[in-house]
């Protein structure tokens, strides 16, 4: 899957010229795990809706696998099959009487036969960690919030997208639900080689998973690099009003207080503690 954005501009209200995106150039190749960050109103949601063809850019080109989706008369359903989009609070889109029917909604819209639909429903429910036999005939509205979200994500996975975009998928989940979600994303990317674009305010999530971080600010792409590169630029991140992963922040602060040689491109607690210990030993 190859995605390329060329000089993308987007304005919401043409009269008032609300600039949602300004001159975005971006290419996403092969299997990447992209963390998309930026504070509220920076254009993250606009960007991912453009990728899915839900809205058209005011100017610029988006090319997905060689197809220019900004051209007139493009079969958008084929694009939407390739690029799955999980909105914020996806459980709010559940509508069918049973979990099976709801997950089958996407595949059926692709005109697949019932055998294939059933196969996909089984697979995607298993992927999100739900037991097919137990849950398929239950009403999605009687499930817990966490389970509802899993069903909704399964509904998108059942389309078998090559790219999966998730807009703050862990918002409102309890710690256990969050961990399960992170495991799911980890598996989808590293086992099934899916390209994933994750919008999140939780930098720990991004740092743990992403292979590349994009930072948007007022519709502009201001930082684009590996998590190491982006999170070591603490000053810039503070200017943009964004957090660093807590543990990285602690290392930065240690450095300020005189630990001049301590590394700051570390995102996990175990690695950080090892670094601190070696640094202390070096001092002795």
């Amino acid at each position, binding site marked *: 899957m190859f995605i390329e954005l060329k000089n993308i501009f987007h304005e919401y209200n043409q009269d008032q010229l609300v600039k949602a995106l300004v001159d975005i150039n971006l290419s996403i190749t092969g299997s990447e795990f992209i963390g998309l960050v930026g504070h509220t109103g920076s254009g993250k949601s606009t960007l991912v809706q453009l990728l899915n063809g839900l809205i058209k850019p005011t100017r610029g080109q988006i090319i997905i696998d060689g197809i220019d989706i900004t051209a007139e008369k493009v079969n958008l359903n084929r694009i939407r099959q390739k690029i799955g989009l999980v909105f914020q609070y996806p459980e709010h*889109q559940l509508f069918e009487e049973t979990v099976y029917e709801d997950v089958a909604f996407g595949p059926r*819209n692709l005109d697949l036969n019932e055998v294939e639909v059933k196969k996909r429903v089984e697979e995607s429910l298993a992927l999100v960690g739900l037991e097919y036999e137990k849950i398929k005939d239950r009403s999605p509205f009687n499930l817990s919030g966490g389970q509802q979200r899993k069903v909704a994500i399964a*509904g998108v996975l059942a389309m078998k997208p090559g790219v999966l975009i998730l807009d703050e998928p862990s918002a409102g989940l309890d710690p256990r639900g969050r961990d399960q979600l992170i495991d799911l994303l980890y598996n989808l990317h590293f086992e099934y080689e899916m390209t994933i674009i994750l919008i999140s305010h939780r930098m720990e999530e991004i740092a743990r998973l992403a292979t590349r971080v994009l930072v948007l600010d007022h519709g502009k792409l201001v930082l684009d690099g590996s998590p190491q590169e982006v999170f070591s630029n603490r000053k810039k991140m503070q200017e943009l009003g964004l957090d660093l992963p807590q543990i990285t922040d602690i290392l930065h602060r240690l450095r300020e207080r005189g630990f001049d040689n301590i590394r700051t491109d570390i995102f996990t607690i175990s690695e950080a503690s090892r670094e601190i210990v070696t640094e202390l030993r070096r001092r002795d």
Partner: protein
Amino acid sequence: MLKDITIGQYIPGNSIVHRLDPRVKMINIIILIISLFLIGRFTGFAIFLAFVIFTILISDLPVKRVLNGLKPIFFLILITLVLHIFLTKGGTVFWQWRFISIEEEGIYTGLFMVSRILLLIMFTSILTLTTSPLQLTDGIEYLLSPLKRFGVPASELSMMMTIALRFIPTLLEEADKIMKAQMARGADFESGNIIQRARNLIPLLVPLFISAFRRADDLALAMESRCYQGGEGRTRLHELKVQKHDIVSLVISSVIAIIVSFY
């Protein structure tokens, strides 16, 4: 997409018409509408039209917007005209083909009815264009309050209207979001025949209703936790007061009403 729908066409302004007390504005409208139905001659309509134009001018409304408001009733006007022209009989026969004929009386009543509808819509649109939805519901509450004696829950009704108006944009936004989410799963809202389209709306309507009920529940709880107990004894931030210009406007409309209905 759905956000293009504009509800409540209020155009903020500071003209004398904007500043009128909403209750007085509504009474004025009622008086003049009654007189509109009592008009018996075209001269009456001419005077009424002059008054409508005068009101539009002093309220600083863009004339285009007022005329745009007439668009939705174009077919109603057309049908009224055609039905009257062909079905009302009497007077000189202008044209005849077998049993179909156009007669003087038909054209006369046709034009008469059309003028009445046009003026009615133009005039009432001034009310919605110059009064904010909140003022409107306040006014309605006051005007309905005498009916409280007969058990009409006037303040509850106006609270319901206020809430409904408040949540229209929220629900539209929600609908837009759900629609996009379903489209991302390959739903199609734009093609097919009427029955297919109606069926395709289920993935939009079910989540929309569920979220509306959830919102209603939350709102009820939030209101109760702030001690809302219904309309009894509630006071308001902006008290409505009848002022001099309100009385003047009442006098003017009454005079116009009397002139046009008895002329």
